[in-house]
């Protein structure tokens, strides 16, 4: 899964720890999501989307776009 989390966070000048605090998760989890080694659960994905005022699809997308169909 690819995601825009690092870009969205940088646009707001938040550190990973800042974002972690807002989402009530660890900084390691933010780092793992940003670097693509962890796909968040659906509840956490919804929380992330709500925080940035976007839809889940605007933030997360599959590596292989065909897999989305």
């Amino acid at each position, binding site marked *: 899964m690819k995601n825009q989390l690092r870009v969205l966070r940088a646009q707001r000048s938040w550190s990973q720890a800042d974002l972690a605090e807002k989402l009530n998760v660890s900084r390691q989890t933010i780092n793992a999501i940003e670097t693509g*080694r962890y796909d968040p659960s659906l509840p956490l994905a919804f929380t992330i989307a709500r925080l940035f005022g976007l839809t889940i699809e605007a933030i997360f997308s599959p590596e292989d776009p065909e897999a989305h169909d």
Partner: protein
Amino acid sequence: MSAPAPKPATSRGVLTMGIAAALLSATGQATPKTLARLVELGLPDIAARAILHAAPVILIVGAAIIGRALGRGRSKLVRGVIYALCGIVAGFFTAYCLDLLVGVPAAIEALNGPLAEPDVIEIALWTYGAIVMSMGLMVAVIATFGSPGAQAINLEDDLDPEALDIRKAERASFGLSAVGLVAMGVASMALSIARQSADGAVLGPCLVAIAAGMIGVLPSFVLWSRLDELQRRQVVDAYATSAVLFTLVAFGWALAQALDVAPPFDAGAVFVGLSITQLVATFVVTASLAGKARAERRPA
């Protein structure tokens, strides 16, 4: 507009390791055999002793520097293996130079009576206890000092400043983790003392082991409630991996026992075997996740 990327922070792990090695060396006594050999070569006794006290510090710092150089640019798993191998070599030669913590066995015997020579399982219990206590002390440094503490114990060349951003709430968790690790180390060592004690002196170390075990386990329950979804998954993955690894360890031990080259696999062996396997599994699980991150960041 995004803020410029902060400069990587410099680690102070090698310096810290040098100080720790010097303190450890100060608790030691020159091994009689090596000292005798150096004196036979014509060195004055005091010079030979000074060399045997200085050598471990140089060896340990050298191992850290070599490990860092060899591991540069490699995955976390490979770096961990390189550091472990360098540490084993440094540890082997340190044992050749010094008998460390010389006052400790005498103090234990003064409190609890004479101890039998440790068998392979008891050596494993002492080793595991020393490893988790050392880990606990390192975690305690982070809990106490926060980011400067993390910087002080890290061996890597340049550190991601994000990784050094340790908040107050995290420090409380690190503190709990440190208490748990140190207590588990004490429990493991007390269990070994109980096994090595004479029949009439088993109860004392058993009580210490039970108390330390309870103190060691309680923080795990509190920490579990504080873990987020990724951290919980890592714990579960580590236990799943340990089950597979420990089955292989038990199979190998059973074969060795059948061939009469290993002692019977008793409850103490199960405890220390599972504990060590779980340490290794936790490292493998976290390192493989980090390796995946590296692979995904690499350009196609």
